[in-house]
């Protein structure tokens, strides 16, 4: 077993365990803290896959911002005197949920393991525009792919994403604004 595999297995086990804690805990704050572990471990997986930038972003946005957001929300929606802050559904519902999610997961895993992925591109070059060679630095490469004007880049979705963020801001403000 090489080092990468070892790291992978460690991270994977912790990741799954933390995720199970998130869905298993009956105290919502513990769940939230376990969620931070999930995010951090996922970031580790990203590092393993040569996605340094995303690993950092993952830490910054998920482990930082989103978790804080969730914790704030938890504080704001606290119900006094409630012992179980993160209750489960009824046993029957849980059983059904287990079956359903197991089916979905197993289906995907089964399909993924027996299927083959495309190994070669079609004969003709179909991508529009020039594909520039990317630098080995992950951050620079992603920057170039996000908004390079001359090479193949995802500038349109990037611009749309800005509007999505604006909509989210406007929406969050409108929703949470106290009635005038």
């Amino acid at each position, binding site marked *: 077993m090489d080092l990468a595999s070892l790291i992978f297995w460690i991270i994977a086990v912790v990741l799954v365990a933390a995720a199970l804690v*998130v869905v298993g805990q009956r105290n919502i704050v513990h769940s939230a803290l376990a969620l931070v572990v999930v995010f951090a471990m996922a970031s580790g997986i*990203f590092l393993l*896959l040569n996605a340094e930038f995303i690993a950092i972003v993952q830490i910054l946005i998920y482990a930082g911002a*989103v978790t804080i957001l*969730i914790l704030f929300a938890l504080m704001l929606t606290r119900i006094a005197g409630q012992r179980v802050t993160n*209750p489960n559904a009824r046993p029957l519902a849980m059983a059904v949920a287990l079956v359903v999610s197991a089916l979905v997961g197993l289906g995907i895993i089964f399909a993924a393991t027996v299927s083959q992925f495309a*190994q070669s591109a079609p004969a003709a070059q179909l991508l529009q525009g020039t594909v520039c060679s990317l630098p080995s630095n992950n951050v620079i490469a992603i920057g170039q792919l996000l908004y390079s004007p001359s090479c193949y880049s995802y500038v349109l979705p990037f611009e749309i994403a800005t509007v999505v963020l604006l909509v*989210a801001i406007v929406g969050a403000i409108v929703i949470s604004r106290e009635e005038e």
Partner: protein
Amino acid sequence: MGLTLTHFVVLGAVLFCIGLYGALTKRNAIAILMSIEIMLNAVNITLIAFSFFNHVKPYSNLLTGQIFAIFIITVAAAEAALALAMIIAIYRKRQTVDVGEIDMLKW
């Protein structure tokens, strides 16, 4: 035995599955949201794994999976903000975040 694509895809699927189970069983709306975040992370892992193991020339030159993941992170964060705002809004009106009790609209 080196790491293969299957390792990561299966990890992603397992994670997705756990998130899904959480979303289906947790009754706190915020917990559901957390479960959904796990599911999205699972998707991200899958995507980045695909990006890493992409052997299809010339597409493998592009880090499409990573770009996709960035967009997902962005949107998920925005979605989380939006959802939390709504959960807080309904908490203010009903004093509960238990989705089992949020069932005025039915039938």
